[in-house]
């Protein structure tokens, strides 16, 4: 978002000077900073000294501070939390679990277990770690009953309502609603209106492509890209600023195949510019077509009980190499597959 020049931003920037600047088309901070000071002096007839002092203040105000690597590491140690997924296979490929301060993305076709994974992780965080979760549902896939079922199976000694009270749910079905929701969340985290936000450790957005996918087709391509980036930046800021783990899910779309053996291949939705948003990306692949009847060695009754095993592949991560593991969805959420 462009930052406008305002009177009083720094002591030297009075309203008269501002008027002179805006009359010459210097309206934003970036206009001022990117222009040569001497040129501004010549253009607006301002004293060179004043221009320099404004420039110095603006640069100082909008620049980042250099941080010592060791300090950063110590700070990271004090704020970082690794949220275990309760599934040892998944923990292993994710290097112990989902990290706070990062955006972790799960990508997969429909019925690959993305929503189940999200709900399972949510219950793990609220039940086992007793931290709070904000769950942003954009597909209508969230089910309170499923969440309660997982809780009952996994934490039989705990009261379901007390576990579920740690989850705040928000259903956003278009981009505007999602933006509003994230804005509100950011505001609440800043102001801390109640104790819920002080122990908020996980924000889930299931799924980003359901609301963002339409941004490319409804407007121009550039508009779509900038919308995507603004949401992506907001998610990253949320993770970094408040030391929260952000989990997002993304769908697959078909793309022209690069190999000759297949007609087409699947790739994550939202295009190349979105691939830079998440720090960790895990691709989920079911081993069978779920809407099909499969051949199997057993008689018909038990055949119908089969479920696809899901292959989880770490596609992007700063910590672990590209590796894969097997998962399956059970009554108690996500578990190790065989």
């Amino acid at each position, binding site marked *: 978002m462009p930052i406008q020049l305002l009177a009083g931003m720094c002591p030297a920037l009075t309203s008269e000077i501002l008027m002179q600047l805006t009359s010459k088309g210097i309206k934003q901070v970036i206009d001022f900073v990117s222009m040569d000071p001497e040129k501004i002096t010549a253009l607006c007839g301002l004293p060179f000294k004043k221009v320099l002092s404004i420039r110095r203040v603006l640069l100082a105000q909008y620049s980042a501070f250099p941080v010592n690597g060791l300090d950063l590491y110590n700070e990271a140690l004090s704020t970082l939390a690794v949220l275990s997924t309760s599934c040892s296979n998944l923990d292993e490929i994710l290097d112990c679990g989902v990290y706070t301060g990062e955006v972790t993305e799960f990508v997969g076709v429909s019925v690959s277990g993305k929503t189940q994974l999200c709900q399972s992780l949510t219950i793990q965080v609220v039940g086992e770690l007793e931290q709070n979760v904000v769950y942003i549902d954009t*597909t*209508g896939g969230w089910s309170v009953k499923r969440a309660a079922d997982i809780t009952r199976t996994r934490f039989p000694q705990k009261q379901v309502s007390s576990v579920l009270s740690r989850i705040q749910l928000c259903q956003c079905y278009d981009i505007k609603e999602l933006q509003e929701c994230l804005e509100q969340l950011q505001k609440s985290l800043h102001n801390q209106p109640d104790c819920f936000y002080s122990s908020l450790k996980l924000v889930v957005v299931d799924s980003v492509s359901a609301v963002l996918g339409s941004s490319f087709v409804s407007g121009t391509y550039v508009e779509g890209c900038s919308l995507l980036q603004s949401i992506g930046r907001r998610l990253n800021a949320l993770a970094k600023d408040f030391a929260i783990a952000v989990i997002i899910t993304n769908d697959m*779309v078909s793309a022209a195949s690069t190999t000759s053996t*297949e007609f087409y291949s699947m790739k994550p939705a939202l295009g190349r510019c979105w691939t830079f948003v998440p720090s960790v990306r895990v691709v989920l692949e079911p081993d069978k077509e779920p809407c*099909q009847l499969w051949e199997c060695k057993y008689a018909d009754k038990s055949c119908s009980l089969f479920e696809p095993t899901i292959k989880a592949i770490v596609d992007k991560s700063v910590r672990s190499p590209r590796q894969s593991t097997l998962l399956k969805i059970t009554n108690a959420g996500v578990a190790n597959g065989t």
Partner: protein
Amino acid sequence: MNFMSANHLYGKHGDGLQHISTSCFAIDNLLDGGFPLGHVSQVAGESASGKTQLCFQLCINVQIPSSFGGMGANSIYVDTENTFISSRLLEMAESTVENLRKRATEVKGLPTPDTFLSTIYLFRCQEAVQLLSVAHQLFDFIKQHPTVKLIVVDSIAHCLRSEEDSKTRLRFLHNLAEIFRKLSRDFHLAVVIINQVSTKLSASFHGTSSVIPALGAIWSNVPSVKLMLTKQNGRRLAIVYKSLTHPRRVVDYDITKDGFRDAASGRSTSMIFSQATANDLLCNDFTQNSQTFKVRRSPEKSTEFEEKTKNKRTRSTESNHSDLSQSHPGDEGCCVEVDFFHEMPPSHHPESRDDGQSSPSSPILLSGSARKKRRFT
């Protein structure tokens, strides 16, 4: 946007009917009692697999009055394939009324088949543009008719598949997805969308092919409940491969003169009631032997209820078994009553185009006029 506590939702949705029964016990089981309110569901299947029949059944079941344990709500039917055959709907309504009469202790408040038909609002659309404009107008329409709890779209693929430009098609899909999601959330109603199927070829020409729902990967992520109706060796099978709470399962179903039902083995009791009264009814006659039925409305109730049904089941299977074999001698899981589809497939039915002249964007109220039409039996 406001945040809600999941705990609050848990309490809120604990009471009141939250599902529309399909009349097929096995499928209801897997969906916790039927198609859920507040979610978008999809029924896909090949031609003549019973998708439309299932939706007719839903339209009728949603109307069962609350005094009979139903929802007592209305439905909207968006018909794009011209397969809405009111005479068939009337037939199903009549058998439902008959069923209700049998079970009712007093006949007071019993609905007539006409009342069932008169509260289905039918929209006919031929093109994608019409479908989209109808969808946009549904918000206002439902505000005026707040009793609507079910929207059926039969089918979404029909008019979108004829759209050639892929970008236009995508825009339609995204728009429709957003509208249906919002409708289901804002009015807390069930949206059931019928989809056609297409063939997916995997790996080169010598590879295998599989039947998947049409409209591609983007649409595939929209519904949160997905069913695939298919036929294998004369058996009708429903694959419930995506549901909110249950893992993937394959169950039998059947289509009879009365409507969408369980496969023959468990059919003698046609379950037309939704979950709440299914509970009571089960204890009276429950001959389902392949499925275990669990009511999970509240944790305390379920265990008690399971025990109850178990006892009842062992008793009732014996008594009903002779009855069953008498009425359906020697059937092997296939339909023994009138095979509706083989006599007259819905797509070739001449009456289906009768109402074509009426404007697609205004609902057609079905009432007595539908009755006058020739019925086929």
